[in-house]
């Protein structure tokens, strides 16, 4: 088969698997698991083949016109360069891991068939986004991902948290998608085509007429999808979905779609230094803010969610300094270790029966219950904190090196101010990242107190996947010298300055957290805390749903717990209160958007109920009264009718005579 055929099959197979799963899910339950796992696995294998054949060499282009539109045609086009080939491998591998993990994690879930089909559909849409060479087709995949995310976040729709979170995720991302769509149209109108190669050719040739406007409109969609400030607030709440969904959608792939999109169209953004500066500032605020918020969260998955936002900020920062190689490199390594972190967190939540770090810090022996999750999570946290030689170190260094070069003027793609912004924010975030990674690890695995409950061994499907993902988390960074051929070609290797600076800062952050934890852990015994799920013996999915639903009633808030032994509380000091709520951004949005919309809705309700309905009801009441009057005349007495008839005849006769006389007189 040609490479093109293979590449077409990559998004097609999970789509077919999803359609078959949705159709057969109820009638043939035996086929659900194979239909979920096998097409995704085949797509992953094919993606590896495509990547091997493409080999970072010449871009593979293939297109067939989908529909003539009269102006700008829409094509079914493939555009596979090194970025697309590697991103597709990441999506395929993570999606396969997640599907296998889900067979164990949601073993007893009654809605597993539709869940698996939606995950397959999501995988297919993401692969479409990755491979598509036409922006309209890319948009189709982009929107399918949005709706799949909505359904999957709301998987536990019995709980109000999940319902609210799924709606929020959908609305906030759509808020970005509207300007995104307008930006796409503006871009296509400017360049005369939706094809990516055509657009890049137009940018390289004459340039665009309004690059800043287009870039800013597109950035709105990217900020929504990739959870960048100020549209990031949906991502922490999206953790109300099952853990595998968080791992696949909200860590490794969908949120990376925005970054990937900017990477594809980087020349468009690079032609406007204002857009790059906006992106740099956005990335810097996102990085630092999310890292501070992560330090204050109590729900283990919300820590990871804020950490995802921060890492996406690194990628956006790399794009802001015009280095898409570094951005996609970080995207790939982050996809691997963040998926691992989430999947391991799922195992931890199942074993501990709670998602609260405060409760876990009062529980001992968790490491003995789930040794696989413990070791793999340690690897992934080291990668997250960017300590050498783990994957995160190399990719984060690539970002910092690009920022440093831009700041010092060695690279001229982006303004130096953007470089300084990203560099300073990146180093500060490295400190905070190490701190919250250390806090997470200490609270989850170094707790003291009652023995953790024993639920037996985790299913093999879950533990195997963890070790599979631990391999790239550990070793992917070592491919750095080989990888730059796949990307734009400039080196991604760390330099001594940033390596020493970044690693040193990370170590300092971790050590400070450790020291604080040493002092505060004594407090833990004095303030008992901890509530576990109602059915700790149940399946992992059930335990997690109960843990999420139980967090707010047990600790007073969905994000934080009143735990004086939390090192994050000591480190953040007075900031903790604000960081725990994500710096009150939700409250601001509530005042700015939710309240006015609700007021408008009540106004419309008033107009409908009181004004429009009055007319409608009045029409009925008036007819009734008229009918009542006419009914008075119906006495049933024939003689009355005859009298009325006679009176009428007499009146008519007199009128006729009078009129005749008047006419005659005139």
């Amino acid at each position, binding site marked *: 088969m040609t490479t093109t055929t293979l590449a077409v099959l990559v998004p097609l197979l999970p789509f077919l698997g999803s359609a078959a799963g949705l159709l057969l899910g109820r009638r043939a339950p035996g086929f659900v698991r194979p239909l979920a796992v096998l097409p995704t696995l085949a797509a992953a294998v094919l993606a590896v083949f495509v990547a091997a054949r493409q080999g970072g060499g010449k871009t593979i282009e293939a297109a067939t016109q989908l529909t003539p539109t009269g102006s700008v045609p829409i094509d079914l086009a493939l555009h596979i360069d090194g970025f697309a080939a590697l991103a597709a491998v990441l999506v395929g591998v993570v999606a396969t891991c997640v599907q296998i993990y889900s067979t164990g994690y949601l073993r007893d879930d009654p809605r597993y068939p539709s869940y698996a089909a939606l995950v397959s559909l999501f995988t297919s849409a993401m692969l479409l986004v990755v491979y598509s060479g036409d922006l309209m087709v890319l948009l189709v995949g982009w929107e399918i991902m949005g709706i799949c995310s909505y359904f999957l976040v709301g998987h536990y729709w019995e709980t109000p948290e999940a319902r609210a979170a799924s709606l929020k995720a959908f609305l906030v991302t759509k808020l970005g998608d509207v300007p995104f769509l307008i930006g796409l149209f503006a871009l296509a109108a400017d360049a005369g085509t939706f094809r990516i190669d055509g657009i890049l050719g137009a940018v390289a040739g004459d340039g665009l007429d309004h690059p800043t406007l287009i870039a800013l409109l597109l950035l709105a969609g990217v900020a929504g999808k990739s959870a960048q400030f100020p549209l990031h607030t949906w991502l922490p709440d999206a953790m109300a979905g099952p853990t595998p969904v968080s791992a696949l959608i909200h860590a490794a792939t969908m949120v990376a779609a925005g970054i990937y999109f900017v990477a594809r169209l980087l020349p468009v953004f690079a032609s406007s230094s204002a857009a790059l500066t906006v992106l740099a500032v956005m990335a810097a605020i996102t990085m630092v803010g999310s890292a501070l918020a992560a330090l204050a969260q109590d729900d283990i998955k919300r820590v990871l969610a804020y950490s995802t936002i921060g890492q996406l900020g690194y990628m956006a920062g790399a794009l802001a300094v015009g280095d898409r190689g570094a951005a996609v490199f970080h995207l790939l390594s982050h996809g691997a270790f963040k998926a691992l972190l989430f999947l391991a967190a799922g195992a931890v939540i199942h074993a501990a029966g709670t998602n609260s770090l405060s409760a876990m810090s009062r529980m001992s022996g968790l490491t003995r219950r789930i040794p696989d999750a413990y070791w793999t999570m340690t690897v992934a946290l080291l990668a997250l904190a960017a300590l050498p030689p783990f994957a995160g170190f190399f990719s984060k260094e690539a970002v910092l090196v690009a920022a440093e070069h831009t700041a010092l003027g060695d690279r001229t793609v982006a303004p130096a101010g953007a470089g300084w912004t990203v560099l300073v924010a990146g180093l500060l975030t490295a400190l905070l990242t190490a701190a919250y990674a250390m806090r997470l690890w200490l609270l989850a695995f170094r707790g003291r107190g009652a023995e953790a409950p024993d639920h037996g061994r985790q299913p093999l499907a879950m533990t195997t996947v963890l070790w599979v993902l631990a391999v790239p988390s550990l070793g992917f960074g070592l491919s750095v010298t080989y990888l730059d051929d796949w990307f734009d070609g400039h080196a991604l290797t760390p330099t001594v300055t940033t390596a020493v600076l970044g690693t040193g800062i990370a170590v300092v952050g971790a050590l400070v957290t450790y020291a604080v934890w040493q002092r505060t852990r004594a407090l833990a015994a004095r303030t008992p805390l901890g509530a576990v799920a109602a059915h700790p013996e149940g399946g992992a999915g059930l335990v997690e749903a109960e843990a999420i639903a139980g967090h707010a009633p047990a600790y007073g808030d969905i994000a934080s717990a009143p735990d004086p032994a939390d090192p994050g509380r000591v480190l953040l000091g007075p900031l903790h209160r604000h960081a725990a709520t994500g710096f009150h951004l939700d409250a601001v949005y509530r005042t700015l958007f939710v309240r006015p919309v609700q007021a408008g809705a009540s106004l419309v309700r008033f107009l409908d109920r009181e004004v429009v309905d009055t007319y409608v009801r009045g029409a009925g009441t008036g007819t009734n009264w008229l009918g009542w009057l006419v*009914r008075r005349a*119906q*006495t*049933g*007495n024939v003689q009355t009718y*005859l009298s009325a008839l*006679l009176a009428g005849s007499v009146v008519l006769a007199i009128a006729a005579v009078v009129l005749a006389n008047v006419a005659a007189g005139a």
Partner: protein
Amino acid sequence: MHLAYPAVLAALLFCVGLYGVLARRNAILVLMSVELMLNAVNLNLVAFDVWLRDTLHAGQAFTLFIIAIAAAEIGIGLAIVLMVYRNRGSSDVDRLRDTAETDESAPAPGEAPAAAGEKAEATA
């Protein structure tokens, strides 16, 4: 003879008939009043026929028609009155108010069962 005498007589007869139709309560008397009105019309027709010296005597022909139709009408009318009397035990026109519009569409209590009982009695 002057036309005024039969015309006045016809008008008086018609008024008596009209009064009977509108004011009498006995159905048979109402029917008789209808006959009075018809005969007033007949009188008019004959009088005008003579007065106009109509060669075709259309007035007299009409009168014959009316007499025939009145005979048929009174036969059917009396049959109806008889049936109503058998059903209700009365031929009072004021009490035949089944088509009256009331606020509640069901007939007034007490009236309907009595009517049904009398009907059963009549058919037996």
